[in-house]
């Protein structure tokens, strides 16, 4: 099954979690590094709760941001999650 198959479940890797910094806003904490989350980033990470499939995550965002192009939302989510996977911050289970 391809990484981006809708049935895959994106889940933050062990030792990766989101927090709220008082001055930086939402931050993804990783082993010895951190990533500031902007725009829809924090919401996407929140939806990757280990229960929702990739299809669910994309569908949720498409309904939450119903004014935006659904295909564009799908592409943005996929690109973002692949970038997290490359940093070993996220797995497609």
């Amino acid at each position, binding site marked *: 099954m391809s990484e981006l198959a809708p049935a895959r479940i994106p889940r933050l*890797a*062990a*030792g*990766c*979690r989101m*927090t709220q*910094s*008082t*001055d930086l806003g939402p*931050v993804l*904490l*990783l*082993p*010895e590094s*951190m990533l500031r989350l902007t725009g829809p980033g924090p919401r996407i990470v929140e939806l990757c709760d280990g229960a929702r499939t990739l299809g669910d995550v994309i569908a949720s965002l498409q309904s939450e941001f119903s004014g935006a192009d659904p295909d564009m939302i799908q592409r943005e989510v996929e690109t973002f999650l692949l970038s997290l*996977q*490359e*940093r*070993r911050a996220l797995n497609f289970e």
Partner: protein
Amino acid sequence: MSFVPRALIAEVTHRCPLRCVYCSNPIEMRSRSDELTTAEWQRVFGEAAALGVLQLHLTGGEPLARPDTEQLVKAGRAAGLYVNLITSGIGLADARLEALVAAGLDHVQLSFQDAEQAQADEIAGTRAHAAKLDLAQRIRKHRVAFTMNIVVHRGNLGRLSQMIALAEALEVDKLEVANVQYYGWAFENRNRLLPTRDQVQETIAIVDAARERLKGRMRIDCVLPDYYARFPKPCMGGWGQGLMLIDPAGVVLPCHAARVIPGLTFDDIRSKPLRWIWEESVSFQRFRGDQWMQEPCRSCERKTRDFGGCRCQAYLYTGDADATDPVCSLAPKRDLIDAVIAQESAAPQWVYRINPSNTPAVVTEPRA
């Protein structure tokens, strides 16, 4: 300009079952009776979080030498911090490992000395390698990020490929190939530890190839020896700019080695609020910005990137902590570093790290 600390290195004890010849602890260590209590660390973690710190690195010595490491992990998490345990892993039984994970431990960084047992144990000055291999397999059973750290030097770089293979076999998330940094005990042993220029080139090639091969499976970080660099490292991201270290007795420092610099008084958390130390204390302000800089740093375009390099290294080599880091190719005293590189291995014996309860540094052979 104001600076916000993001990481706190908590050296919770200087006690350690290992005696590594490149230990980054200062030669003059804190004894057990001086160590901060659980409650004091708990308070400090809260103060650090309020300052903007996000990540806590519990280290030592060996942080597991304290009986309250689980409570420290819990206190770090309660303060909202990401908790990393930097450990040799010696004596870490299953029950305690489980308790640490249950307390909220985010990340374990386990140190290795080599891929071969005999050579690893020679560096550690004790039998440690087999226990580390066993622990690595047990860590992998828990939901916690796992980094393997291997300190590399002239004596083990020939086995770098084996070390990478070991990291793969242990299925770690990240491998740190860290060349020795020449401070503390490592400075004493630098003649035997410093790799050759050829070894450094070979390291780069091996690491690049492994990164490509292992993409998406294992990350590899690599620290090269700055003695071979053209420009200095931005030590600690700049003095007092984003990171602080608190030693076992509660003294707050801008880096591991800062106590070697004479004439600076470092404040401690028993007598001053952490915020005051970070923002107001003389020692933390001493090398912030560029007003302290001499030439060629002061007019150098790189000063905002490398901050003149490392103040401790400048002092160790030139006797002047305001000098340009001597590793810089533009430094007036670069010849001091070149002389070290040119020297053949002169030291016949290792200087092993000693525990804080003992006093004078002595040259000894490893325990059998």
